[in-house]
């Protein structure tokens, strides 16, 4: 029976969805080890400990809480040192992070500190004898690699959204810990946090994504994409690399091989031809709709439903129809 470590990511005093995913994955690993404990690691500004019980819902037996004013913003050096110290002391079989911006920054540092193997962006995993065997998308998502990690603990980052968090309520015990390295003494310090656009849903969290490409013809026409997203109510707006390169949308909206990889329930590709650069970022969406004027466009090869035509003409009609359908319930 070995215990499993999970990094529970929080930002601005709130847990992120990926925190529940890592705890839930750690629960599955601990159960596979014959019922070991899940130890979640939660760090932030004083007061963050109030979030600990939420992690119990997903199967955390222990929540290690590190509260420090210097941890109000992400502090990779202090967090990596503290997490590595806890992992070393805890004798864990595995340590699970999210493949989020923070997890991708943190987990390699922890692996290097501990001198252990680390698998990135994992979509499936299992314990096999003394190895952790994981699946990892490579080659722009065109190939799935199965990797075998030997040694303990094995570290992995979990692809956000690849594995839904499953409730497994326990009464989590809270243990307080101190940072292993003074956050104020870090070599890299966050000078400023720039919040996203208010209540706007992030493309990694939204169940629906409406994305636009060059077929929209102008930055102004992105308003039509925004309108459709608003009609769905639970949608975020994405874009192709061509569009972010042209400055129609910020780089943070880019979906694709060099941008974000998403897997929403519904992906609506508007005026997107479907270059591999883009497909690599959205091919794992559950349902894909494509609207494009060229019926030979590669996007129709991955789309479940397609409409051939001018996206600028079609979008207002679709927006009105989606609004009506949602009002009818």
């Amino acid at each position, binding site marked *: 029976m070995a215990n499993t470590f999970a990094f529970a990511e929080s*930002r601005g005093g709130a847990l992120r969805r990926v925190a529940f995913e890592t705890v839930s994955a750690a629960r599955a690993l601990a159960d596979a080890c014959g019922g070991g404990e899940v130890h979640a690691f939660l760090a932030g500004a004083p007061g963050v400990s109030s979030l600990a019980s939420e992690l119990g819902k997903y199967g955390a037996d222990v929540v290690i809480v590190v509260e420090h004013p210097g941890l109000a913003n992400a502090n990779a050096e202090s967090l990596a040192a503290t997490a590595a110290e806890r992992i070393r002391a805890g004798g864990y079989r595995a340590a699970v992070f999210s493949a*989020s*911006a*923070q997890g*991708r920054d943190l987990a*390699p*540092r922890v692996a*290097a*500190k501990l*001198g*252990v*193997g*680390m698998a990135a*962006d994992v979509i499936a995993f299992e314990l096999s004898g003394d190895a952790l*065997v994981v699946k990892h998308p*490579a*080659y722009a998502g*065109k*190939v*799935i*690699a*199965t990797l075998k*990690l*030997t040694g303990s603990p094995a570290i992995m980052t979990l692809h956000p959204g690849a594995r839904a968090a499953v409730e497994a309520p326990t009464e989590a015990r809270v243990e307080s810990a101190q940072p292993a390295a003074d956050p104020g003494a870090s*070599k*890299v310090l*966050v*000078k*400023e946090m*720039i*919040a996203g656009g208010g209540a706007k849903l992030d*493309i990694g*969290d939204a169940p629906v994504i409406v994305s636009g490409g060059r077929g929209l013809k102008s930055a102004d026409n992105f308003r039509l994409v925004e309108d459709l997203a608003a009609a769905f109510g639970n949608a975020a707006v994405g874009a192709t*690399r061509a569009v972010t390169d042209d400055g129609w949308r910020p*780089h*943070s909206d*880019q979906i694709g*091989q*060099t941008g974000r990889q998403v897997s929403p*329930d*519904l992906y609506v590709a508007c005026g997107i031809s479907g270059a*591999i*650069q883009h497909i*690599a970022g959205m*091919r794992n969406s559950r*349902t*894909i709709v494509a609207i494009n004027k060229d019926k030979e466009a590669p996007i*129709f*090869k991955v*789309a*479940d*439903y397609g*409409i*051939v*035509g*001018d996206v600028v003409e*079609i979008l207002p009609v679709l927006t009105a*129809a989606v609004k009506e*359908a*949602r009002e009818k319930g």
Partner: protein
Amino acid sequence: MKIAVCIKRVPDMETRFKIAASGSSVDETGLKYDMSDFDGYAVETALQLNEKQGPGETVVISLGPDVVQEQLRKALSMGADRAVQLKSDRVPADGLAIATALAAELKSGGYDLILFGRQAVDSANATVGPMTAELLDLPCATAVSSLEIANGRATARRELEGAAEVVEFSLPAIVSVDEGMPRARYPSLKGIMAAKKKPLEVRPAQLGEERITIEKMELPPERAAGRIVGEGPAAVPELVRLLHTEAKVL
């Protein structure tokens, strides 16, 4: 500034990949190669920093068999000053084994700045940069979308999900570059000619222990064939009906 840029040779992602007979790698027959996209941004970033900030040196480093010299020569033809190949018959699947070899090379190089791409576009791990920083105990900012350097201090922006942060640190430091940083320039004819005379040193890679093996590679399941619902705005009602009754997403 003395800047090192670590680059990786990767196949063209437009390829329709096939799995090799071994079942644990892609079939390399007929593949075209280039440096990884983000590594190209890193080379460009280094060149622009040294062009703007006066005399400096840009050194490109790549780990792998002799074929990586092709990508090192390309970086030299873009304007890098010299190149180092850390010779190894293959590139390990364990990022820490690679980082160990890079750290050994970089340690005594006296670099002000060490650049990486955010991730290699083939293996897509994004681990080697921050691991190298950890081994060298250097400040590190990963996946930066902008970078400013003045008087030995750096300011960088990192995109988070739905937010961004601005970080500050002193040089020497390690930075990995993301979208938002400048695209790789095309080598000029003059650059290509000059690159042939630039130094390219070859040293054995001092790889670290490998704890990761590739067991299998496979192609993901194809998506089931979709259908064209119709043409123009007239097709909208049928699409909405299908999203509601069949896909159940509306």
